[in-house]
């Protein structure tokens, strides 16, 4: 996880320099993220499982809304509207191990988080809850921070059909 430290350091400088909260990862190129592959989650039972607690949510907002804080640099169909969630792919798809990265501000705890927008691959477009936000997005010249790539690219299991995008927390952007 060394790259994360380097990332975080750069991120601070970036934040001071730009209006955007998204980090600059020039030269880092493509990142290998979220490569765990063991399915551990309980099966979906058709109902959204939401915590019942009444205190301010640590992860506030509706993950199926484009306004959700983690979506600050997303570009695609929200997996939570497609049979997955903000962090899991819908049934029958494969999560791309390569991805683009954003840094989003959690209004509840006031922290900036590194968000990995892993695409889910191997079926046609989900077509629901399209969301395009471009905080910190840059051109295709800097792949690690460009949401205009189909990040299913290079996933041997599903090269290359794009289904939807997740917004997975990698860690805080310190």
């Amino acid at each position, binding site marked *: *996880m060394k790259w*994360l430290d380097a990332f975080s350091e750069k991120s601070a400088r970036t934040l001071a320099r730009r209006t955007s909260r998204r980090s600059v990862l020039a030269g880092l190129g493509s990142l290998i*993220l*979220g490569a*765990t*592959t063991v*399915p*551990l*989650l309980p*099966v*979906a*039972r*058709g*109902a*959204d*499982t939401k*915590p*019942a*607690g009444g*205190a*301010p*949510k*640590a*992860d506030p907002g509706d993950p199926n809304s484009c306004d959700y804080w983690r979506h600050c640099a997303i570009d695609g169909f929200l997996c939570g*509207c*497609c*049979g*997955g*969630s*903000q*962090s*899991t*792919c*819908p*049934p*029958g798809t*494969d*999560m791309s191990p390569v991805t683009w990265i954003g840094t989003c501000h*959690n209004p509840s*705890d*006031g*922290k900036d*988080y590194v968000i*990995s927008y*892993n695409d*889910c691959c191997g*079926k*046609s477009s*989900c*077509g*629901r809850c399209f969301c395009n936000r471009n905080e910190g997005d840059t051109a295709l010249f800097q792949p690690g921070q460009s949401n205009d790539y189909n990040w299913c690219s290079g996933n041997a299991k599903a090269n290359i*059909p794009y*289904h939807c995008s*997740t917004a*997975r*927390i*990698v*860690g*805080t952007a*310190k």
Partner: protein
Amino acid sequence: MRLLVNALLLCTSLAGSAFADLPSDTEHGSQVATLQVPPPKHWVWVNDFVFPHMADGMAYLIDGDSGRYLGTLSTGYGFARVVLPRDGKLIYSPETYFSRGTRGKRTDVVTVYDAGTLKPLGEIPIPAKRSSNMPMMSNSVMTDDERFLLIYNFNPAQSVTVVDIKTRKFVREIETPGCALVYPTGPRSFFSVCGDGSLLLADVDDSGAAHQKRTKPVFDMSADPVTEKAVRIGDTWYFVSFAGRIYPLKADAHEATVGASWWLTSDAERKAGWRPGGIQQLAVNAQKSRLYSIMHRGGVETHKDPGKDVWVYDVSTHQRVQQFSLKNLATSIQLSPDEQPLMYSIFIDGTDLDIYDAASGKLLRSVAHVGTTPTIMVTP
């Protein structure tokens, strides 16, 4: 960067803490959701032949109780519908592909999906003759014993492909000249309906071969012909005519008889122009012996038009027992098969799936943006 155990734990025990970080999603947990097997009775598959982009047919799984979208299948060119075995473990999908999307070599297969993971488990090559038409339930069916899958072919010669579900192999093509679609009537029997109103009765033996018999015409195809959109309760297929007359057809491998017909409409209603219409215009719930029909007012040439009303009948008494109006125009309705049925309603040119309490006609919920041109719905 500190990581906590999991998101649920965080939300319930640490909510509001200004000091703990949200946990990483990349350190633990599944990446891909799976589905309950067998599926609950209130799940529904919406099939989409995607008229503007027919190479990219799709099917969508929705939970009628929560309105949650559960998953997707990608199902190729001119898709009709998924076929669901009773145990709910697999999904059979007759599919057509071209080596170059809309040109090149055509390949027809039955793809077998795992119902829990929605992953293709395998595919069964079949003759590249599968009929491409406005999707009908009778495009593809299983024999009642679920040994054979029967698929209607049109190129434009007419036949039925027989796939052995046990061995997952194509076994035979049954010629059905002049006769269309496939309506199962028993463990191993089915019929097709011929252009002159007669039936082709067929009995499929262990080898997949069919013993066929052609009846005399049982339907008058000229004055007020029946549609393809028949529905079945037990040993009876309910066909409906363009004008709204129900013909109950009992058939097995050897004979077919049409019982006394009855109307969805009174004389006065017919004069006022009321008739059924749509793509999947009839739906039945066997538990309740109920038949639901999409109704609208229009001329004879409006037999495929959508409707905004649903009329409900007791198939044993032929009495209308209920009428209600829909929120949106509908071309297709379907009922869940249980004792507390839901009614699903969708319009091919709009993509809200509306979910009603079938008993009261009350709209329970709407699911926005389900597909591109949704056609027919299939329940477990």
